[in-house]
């Protein structure tokens, strides 16, 4: 069936399609784009119901003259490892010690035997008086150490670069490592898109590791067997947002966790099974798109947050 008018219509439609494609292509230029339809609007998540906020900021200790890298709390003292500096201050903010170290630390762990300071790919051991004792060899390439925690005779090291947890004895001998993989679907392995990979040991010597890509906290045996986990992925206050949160955690005496998130910065407390207990500091307390503060918590539940954006340790106490 030949039909001239139909042929004409076909040509017309094809011409229209070509025109639409050309117009669409030319419209997608940097100066011709309208508002970004994919812009993530998360202002609403920055506002937190005040009834959920159980803490208030009471004071802060400025960190002067050096760039802080990590914070720990031991023996009622705050241990700050920074660029070329190891500083110890009391919980009242009075300096107890300040000594020189080499390099920019990324993590610190203090126990009754020594001070362990983690750098990008190695660990240095100091006495609690600040005397250098030993440097442990790097366990391989691509290491990015982000967290240390000791349990009895072991020191656990979070290696974000290789997405693994290393287990040393306190003399620096590598005893084992694991990547969080298990046969169950829960044991996917550590998903670490950025250098945010924290771990803690609670008062029962149980190892908890953040799996940031899954927004999960995972409990492992010393040998790396997954024992349990909980996840809380959400932009809402009940969960963790973004690619890799919580960026930092601390554990309280009762097994609850203090969590700190980056980008939309917020500090919260969850019970040991992952239920949100309270909010320590909502996003409006921090810079927009800021870094996650390193957090530690004392036996009274006071939270100390090392705010890297402002170089200050901020203290949050429970509301009366």
């Amino acid at each position, binding site marked *: *069936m*030949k*039909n*001239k008018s*139909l*042929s004409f219509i*076909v*040509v017309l*439609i*094809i011409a229209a*399609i*070509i025109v*639409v*494609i050309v117009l*669409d*292509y030319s419209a997608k*230029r*940097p*100066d011709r*784009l309208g*508002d*970004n*339809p*994919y812009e*993530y609007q998360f202002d609403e998540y920055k506002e937190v119901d005040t009834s959920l906020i159980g803490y208030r900021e009471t004071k802060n200790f400025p960190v002067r003259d050096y760039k802080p890298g990590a914070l720990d709390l031991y023996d009622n003292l705050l241990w700050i490892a920074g660029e070329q500096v190891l500083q110890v201050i009391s919980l009242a903010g009075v300096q107890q010690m300040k000594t020189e170290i080499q390099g920019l630390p990324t993590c610190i762990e203090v126990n009754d035997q020594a001070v362990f300071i983690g750098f990008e790919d190695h660990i240095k051991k100091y006495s609690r008086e600040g005397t250098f004792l030993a440097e442990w060899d790097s366990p391989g390439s691509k290491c990015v150490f982000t967290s240390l925690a000791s349990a009895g005779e072991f020191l656990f090291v979070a290696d974000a670069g290789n997405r693994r947890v290393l287990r040393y004895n306190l003399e620096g001998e590598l005893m084992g490592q694991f990547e969080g993989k298990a046969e169950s679907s829960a044991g*996917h392995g550590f*998903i670490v*898109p950025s250098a945010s990979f924290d771990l803690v040991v609670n008062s029962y010597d149980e190892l908890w590791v953040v799996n940031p*890509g*899954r*927004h999960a906290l995972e409990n492992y045996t010393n040998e790396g067997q997954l024992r349990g986990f909980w996840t809380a*992925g*959400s*932009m*809402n206050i009940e*969960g*963790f*947002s*973004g*690619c890799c949160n919580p960026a930092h955690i601390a554990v309280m005496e009762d097994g609850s966790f203090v969590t700190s998130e980056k980008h939309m910065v917020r500090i919260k407390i969850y019970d040991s099974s992952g239920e949100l207990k309270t909010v320590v500091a909502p996003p409006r307390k921090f810079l927009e798109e800021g870094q996650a503060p390193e957090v530690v918590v004392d036996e009274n539940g006071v939270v100390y947050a090392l705010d890297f954006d402002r170089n200050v340790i901020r203290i949050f106490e429970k509301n009366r």
Partner: protein
Amino acid sequence: MIRKNYRLGFLVLMVFAFLALNAQQRFPKPEFESGYEQPNTTTPEPRTAGMEVFDVIVLFGVMALATWLILKKRSRRGVLWLSVFTLLYFGFYRNGCICPIGSIQNVTLALFDPGYKISITVLLFFLLPLVFALFYGRTFCAAACPLGAIQDLVVIRPISVSSWVRKTLSFIPHIYIGLAILFAATGTDFIICRYDPFVGIFRTDGPYLMIGLGIAFLVLGMFFARPYCRVFCPYSVLLGFMSHFSKKHITITPSECINCKLCANSCPFDAIEAPIDEKVRTESTVRKNLRNYVIFGLLVPVWIFAGGFAVSKAHVFLSKAHPDVYLSELLIAQPELREDTENLDIQAFLESGKSMDQLVEEASVIRSKFRTGGWYLGGYLGLVLGIMLMNQFVLRKRKDYIPHKRDCFSCGRCMDYCPVGEQSGDRKSGIVKAKQ
């Protein structure tokens, strides 16, 4: 033995199915609350290496089966059901990616950019249909292309358009493939993928414009069969060229053509050439056509030069398609835009740490590539035009209805309509079935 092969095949399928079920992304998507509209990506989520190989095996299997159905079994129904499978697998399950049509750009970029590598599976996706076309015609188009399959299924009332319209429209794929190669070679864009009209339908989440275009193509395809294949598909240029040399192309009749014309009426693509009346071949006509053929043949270099000159002159305009060229011109003309924090392209450039001088230098190199590429593109288009014009004066000898090797999609409709059956000795008793 056959049963054993079936079992082996089934086992292999099960292994790949298991792999597919257990495939996981290395990094899961970040959590987004409902209400957030996620951008559509031009490529679907990555596959495991094993599944990519499986896709190649499926493609090869489908084309082999299609070839067998067309050349040996002569089953239009078989081709139809195979194309349904293709639509489901390569279309809706594989989201239309990777496809041989888009692979033109991957191959091109790999040839021109040493930093860009393609996997062997991508290369096979590009080459396999061409190899099949070289030997057996466009069996890929018949049943292994999801874009062809979705259009083939909506052909309701095909119309036959004028010969001059067909010939004019057939020039568009040459422009499209030329631009696609130029854009890919200069690292500008993958326009074939960006304007694949059916990907939005396959993924059910494309931009409204692309879904609209896909629907427009399907509506148009109800009457003008396979509009994308015939008027746009850049891969059809390569397939048509290879198919032109195929020895074992689909035949309409299994034995002798009786010139009933049923096949020509059955073909929705106007891809069947009618017999040529010998009376047309008068001595004066032959002489006149020969003279014109020679004249137009001599003009081919002129078309090539004119095309190359014209397109190379358009290199300034064409190169603006490259984001770096456009951005450099924009920032020179409107430096105040650097302060526009909402402009993602400009902010991305500023945060890259690149200086304005570097950007301008890079833009200049790209523009130079467009100038050179413009000569090749224009020259190619001039050559195609010249050959098309020469072909107007070729007087062919043809006694039977035969499929046009370049344009035929090997869909098998014509052989289904052909009333001539298989011969078994007496050629005159060839008519064993007849259809309306």
